[in-house]
């Protein structure tokens, strides 16, 4: 049961990221959680309300996308999705494989914000900045 600490990390990161958009309200937080991430989605949702209460992102909706395990099979030279996590065999040929290509994700994919519309230009520039290789911010008008 470490979902509360996971959710607290999400709240910290999102609060920090949303700080770049003064006056904007965070409407939605989208997570990607792999089937191998050892995280119970129901518990994340349960903790979400408690963890966001009294923060600048209180009221934001949590959307969790579960990512199935995808393995690469060398003999088939093909990536396949697994039905579960009970056996790491290629569903096509039955060969065991250690090459997990997807399913360990534990990440914040994106946030949806309600932009007050002021200083739009400044925010877009700020949002276009990249911090390192793993963190790319982009904006889209929706």
């Amino acid at each position, binding site marked *: 049961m470490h979902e509360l600490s996971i959710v607290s*990390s999400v709240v910290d990161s999102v609060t920090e990221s949303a700080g770049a958009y003064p006056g904007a309200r965070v409407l939605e937080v989208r997570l990607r959680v792999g089937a191998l991430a*050892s995280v119970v989605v129901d518990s994340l949702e349960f903790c979400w309300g408690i963890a966001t209460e009294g923060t600048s992102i209180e009221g934001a909706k949590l959307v969790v996308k579960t990512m199935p395990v995808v393995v690469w099979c060398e003999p088939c030279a093909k990536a396949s999705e697994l039905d579960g996590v009970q056996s*790491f065999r290629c569903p096509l040929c039955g060969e065991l494989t250690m090459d997990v290509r997807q399913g360990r994700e534990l990440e914040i994919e994106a946030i949806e914000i309600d932009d007050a519309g002021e200083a739009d230009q400044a925010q877009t520039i700020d949002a276009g900045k990249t911090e390192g290789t793993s963190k790319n911010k982009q904006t889209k008008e929706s």
Partner: protein
Amino acid sequence: MTTRIVELRQGILKKNDELARTLRQKFTSAGVLVLNLVSSPGTGKTAFLERTLRELTSRGARVAALVGDLETDNDARRLAASGAPVRQINTHGICHLDAEMIDRHLTGWEIGASHQVSESASQRLVELRDLDYLFIENVGNLVCPSSYDLGEKIRVALLSVTEGEDKPLKYPTLFNSADAAVITKMDIAEPCGFDRELALRNINEIRPGIRIFETSSKTGVGMEAWLGYLAEQRGLGAL
């Protein structure tokens, strides 16, 4: 109202992962092999580590251990009897160790300051670069520790013969992320009706090709192979 999507694509445990990366670099440059031992409570991590520390120490290897528990320093006291420097990490309710706890408890070890853990190991000077092996005994839990990188080189999943052969299937994340598996309490495998073949097969379904050691901390069976593996991982050849 303008709504916009801001893509973050950032690891939830980014802070932990970054610190773990820094620790890993530190361990590598110090030339110390770091192992993270994970299992359920009661598997026998401490007994296994006790035996490992004793065997390594008697062979002249320089070893130290960090041991995580919710409360008490009982395990650190037990392990310190091996003569190795040991530090207890009390998580006070947190179900796993994280990189920050490791970093904090290494303070002093890097610079060679004296540290106090237990009576027998107190006042010892330890520097990371003077160590061959550093063992981290995680909090007894098969779920949460698998999410937290501690900067270790080798993650070891332990399973005892009393736990049921299907444990790897029930807790696939840990076994799938492990680099080695250790079966403990082999001395009581028979009276427990332990189905060895089934256990090995289940581990292999979750982590194909993983090195598996069948051990008893009581009789010492399987310890030679385990110690050989440790030496091999350190790149020393046979001890």
